[in-house]
């Protein structure tokens, strides 16, 4: 995967801005003044030990969790403003979960067209057509009528990616998308994600997949104890991390 290193990120408009994000669950501090900016078309990989607040950070971007203080913006919409229409923002922010969370009572196609039909009121025929294109894109054209239980983990996760893409989001959030997968299925999911990155999707990815980092990530953010410790290009962070905490963490996972 090394061969196709991502192109240099040109300066483009910030798409997601996380400003002084703080979040605590009772006494546990999950986020502590975290700042991250993601530019349009940028792919940011978030790494860090478990409990470092990576997933929480992601889940605050579409307000599955509420920040305790701080701000999050997606383009010109302030996610953290109670008055903003959070559902409009969620339409534009796709999310992929560690446990896939496909709807088990619906087929692959029904999973994909549900939100476009209900939320965006897309006519069924049009939604199905788009669904077919998406299934082809994730390499699962023949699984249209199959229920999630009959799909492998890798296939389920690819359907979940297609489901998120069906809303034409401007940002995609991936919360440990390959952590629940058997090793032989990780690649098929990462391939889809790398493709997506190449097409210019803005992505925030919580993952420790080095292959993906090298092939698609523009920058890597290291988090620990709810703080952003350092950020740099994959080469910088993985080969010559500045912070001692980053070095210690990388020693464990590399």
């Amino acid at each position: 995967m090394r061969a196709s290193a991502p192109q240099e990120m040109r300066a483009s408009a910030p798409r997601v801005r996380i400003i002084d994000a703080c979040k605590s669950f009772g006494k546990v501090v999950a986020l502590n003044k975290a700042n991250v900016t993601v530019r349009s078309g940028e792919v940011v990989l978030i790494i860090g030990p478990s409990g470092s607040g990576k997933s929480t950070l992601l889940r605050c971007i579409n307000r599955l969790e509420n920040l305790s203080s701080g701000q999050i913006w997606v383009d010109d919409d302030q996610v953290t403003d109670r008055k903003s229409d959070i559902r409009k923002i969620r339409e534009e922010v796709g999310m992929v979960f560690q446990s896939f969370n496909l709807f088990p009572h619906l087929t692959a196609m029904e999973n994909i067209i549900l939100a476009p039909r209900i939320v965006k009121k897309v006519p069924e025929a049009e939604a199905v057509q788009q669904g077919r294109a998406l299934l082809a894109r994730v390499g699962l054209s023949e699984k249209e009528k199959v229920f999630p239980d009959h799909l492998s983990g890798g296939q389920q996760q690819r359907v979940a990616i297609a489901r998120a893409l069906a809303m034409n989001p401007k940002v995609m959030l991936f919360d440990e998308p390959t952590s629940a997968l058997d090793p032989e299925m990780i690649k098929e999911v990462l391939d889809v994600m790398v493709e997506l990155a190449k097409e210019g999707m803005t992505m925030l990815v919580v993952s420790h997949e080095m292959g993906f980092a090298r092939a698609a990530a523009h920058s890597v953010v290291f988090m620990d104890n709810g703080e952003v410790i350092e950020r740099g290009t994959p080469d910088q962070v993985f080969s010559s991390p500045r912070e001692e905490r980053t070095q210690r963490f990388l020693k464990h996972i590399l």
Partner: protein
Amino acid sequence: MSDGALIPGKGEKSAFSAWRISFFGAIAVLVILPVLSPDPYWRIIQFLPDGILITLEVTVMSIACSLVVGLITGIGRISRITIINRIATIYVEIIRGIPLLVQIFYIYYALGKLIQVPDIFAAVIAMTVCYGAYLGEIFRAGIQSIHKGQMEAAIALGLTRAQALRRIILPQTIRVVLPPLGNEFIALLKDSSLVSILAVSDLLRRGREYASKTFNYFEAFTVVALVYLVMTLFFSRLVALMEERMSRRDR
């Protein structure tokens, strides 16, 4: 209220399963008794069908109404709107603390003070008020048993909580709640005998009427018990079959 054990588990398929022995045994006794001694058994059996019909009517109407009340209560119990949540919870707490027989009396006379309704409707309303609370708890538990990732995925796609509930959560809940609902329905069928204390001529009341006319108490209640048994065993089988079909369609 339900006793669970009425629904036969899987693997009880042999010709001599407990269910078969009870069900066909009860039917056999119901056939043999009138043949051996037509008086009083044949007379009793001729006297009861009106009551069976009323019992079934009360049961079916109560099931339909308490399903609606139960679903609303169950959703209310998990509502994030405090007032709705409180109302639903208080309703459940109150109803579960009062014996059904007392509720039936109470609702009958309370209703009587307000409006004149036929006794059978008073009975259905009382059963609905009571069973609505119990079914509400079943629906609540069923909804809460669905993995929270399902709601999150739906919401992340832009659905409202109500849309997610209707399209994603409830369809999955049905499968989970079917067995306990079935048990509750069978319990309701049995509890419907309590409405005989009102002027509703259900199966039990018809049996009592016959008995007090002829003083054949033992014989009358033997037949009444057997008829109840046949009905509940029949419905428990129905629920088990439905459950089986659902789980098969699932695989």
